[in-house]
């Protein structure tokens, strides 16, 4: 998926249909439009309230030809509708020359097109995932509508997961999304005093989110389950016991949209479905991940576009399994393209709360996908991983900054960034 770069600062949005189509009943249009909005509110805390008059966030119009925005419609077929991103107002325009229909294989299905356009109104760009609602092409009437995982990930990247959502929405293969378990882990002082090897030496091998939403850190032959601001009780445990067949000293790991977790070490990789090896592994990286080097430093699925990024030394590679070749000829590129990141990373963690985290040595960097740079914050990045991620006692939170003040300012900085949008 692709995010345009703006979003609404509020989750309670209003809309009105200021010009109805010629050939449909108003009540049908009202119903279909409400249903189209509900596609997005089902997976987020967004709410959409219709208004008959007055200012609204999203104005909907059925118009023909030139209609005042300089982007004229083209009659039957061709362009069906367009919508403006939040930063441009969020309005959605539908070409009234089309034969808009409801629950019919004839004409153009209003619900499907409206749901797509409202995706733009909320900040989503076109996706290159063909099955996604946000793919640009109209696929014809689909009597049973199901939002693609790609769309769910996209909208949740902007507005977060629905707070009341139960577990069944989390299966990436069934239209769900990865849960946001890695919300900034340590804005409150660490509570659990830890006396463990990870506190003495916080350098880690790999970090990843499981499909179930747990975040794990791998170090040597042990793994740690992370809580919001520390390490879960009873950890570390042996990797060989948690993921039977997997060796220690892993180089990199990530969980892909298919819910499978990939581990890399040396020239080989392993694929797991949950805690079970998913077939005959290990396999050679050069076979399963053509174009990606051996002996990786880090890997992640970047929330900015859902593609897989690999890091090694001073270079990075972008891997798209849907493309041939999966790595474009323009790669590798220098890590310096990621403003503020050092070379020779240890680990990278998939974006879930608007940020991507990179780890090197005993420190971590918070990367802002919107500014495409390591965040400026107080205390500054890099920050010590032991304090902020692993809840270690008697470890510094920063250098030369009062702890209490640092926490407050960091929280404030995060909040302002999260709401910094249209």
């Amino acid at each position: 998926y692709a995010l345009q770069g703006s979003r609404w600062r509020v989750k309670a949005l209003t809309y009105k249909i200021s010009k109805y189509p010629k050939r449909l009943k108003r009540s049908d249009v009202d119903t279909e439009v409400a249903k189209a909005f509900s596609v997005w509110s089902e997976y987020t805390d967004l709410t959409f309230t219709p208004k008959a008059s007055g200012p609204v966030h999203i104005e909907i119009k059925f118009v023909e030809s030139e209609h005042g925005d300089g982007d004229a419609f083209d009659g039957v077929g061709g362009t069906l509708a367009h919508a403006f991103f939040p930063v441009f107002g969020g309005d959605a325009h539908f070409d009234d020359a089309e034969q808009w229909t409801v629950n019919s294989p004839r004409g153009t299905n209003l619900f499907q097109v409206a749901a797509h356009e409202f995706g733009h109104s909320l900040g989503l760009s076109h996706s290159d995932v063909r099955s996604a609602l946000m793919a640009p092409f109209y696929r014809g009437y689909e009597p049973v509508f199901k939002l693609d995982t790609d769309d769910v990930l996209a909208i949740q990247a902007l507005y977060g997961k629905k707070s009341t959502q139960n577990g069944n929405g989390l299966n990436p293969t069934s239209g769900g999304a990865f849960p946001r378990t890695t919300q900034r882990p340590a804005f409150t002082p660490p509570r659990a005093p830890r006396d463990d090897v990870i506190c003495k030496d916080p350098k880690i091998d790999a970090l990843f989110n499981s499909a179930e939403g747990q975040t794990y850190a791998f170090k040597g032959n042990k793994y740690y389950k992370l809580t919001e601001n520390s390490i879960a009780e009873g950890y570390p445990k042996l990797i060989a016991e948690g993921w039977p067949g997997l060796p220690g000293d892993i180089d990199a790991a990530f969980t892909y949209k298919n819910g499978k977790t990939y581990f890399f070490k040396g020239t080989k990789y392993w694929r797991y479905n949950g805690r079970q090896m998913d077939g005959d592994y290990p396999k050679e990286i050069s076979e399963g991940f053509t174009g990606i080097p051996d002996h990786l430093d880090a890997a992640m699925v970047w929330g900015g576009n859902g593609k897989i990024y690999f890091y090694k030394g001073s270079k990075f590679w972008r891997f798209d399994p849907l493309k041939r070749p999966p790595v474009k000829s323009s790669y590798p590129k220098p890590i310096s393209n990621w403003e503020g990141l050092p070379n020779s990373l240890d680990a990278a963690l998939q974006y879930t709360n608007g940020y991507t985290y990179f780890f090197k040595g005993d420190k971590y960097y918070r990367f802002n996908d919107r500014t495409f740079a390591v965040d400026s914050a107080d205390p500054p990045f890099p920050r010590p991983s032991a304090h902020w991620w692993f809840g270690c006692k008697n470890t510094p939170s920063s250098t030369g900054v009062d702890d209490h003040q640092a926490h407050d300012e960091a929280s404030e900085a995060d909040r302002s960034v999260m709401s910094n949008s249209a």
Partner: protein
Amino acid sequence: VQSGPVSTTTQAEIYLSQFGYLPASARNPANGGLLDANTWTKAVQDFQSFAGLNVTGELDDETMRLMSMPRCGVRDKVGFGTDSRSKR
């Protein structure tokens, strides 16, 4: 603004510029603007890549068929679109 099937290079050119694969100047073929072969091939490849087609750079039947499909009028987030990223 174009409607209907894409069956010629000129129509494809308009389509590719309309949806952000070619610069806006290519949108009006009457202005005499010439596209170099690389730019054209790259634009077709970008479209094919985005649309999940075989990336050949050739304006083949499958590519034109997809260009002829009804679609959303918002530009795809590639190339010359106003929303394209300046830095990745």
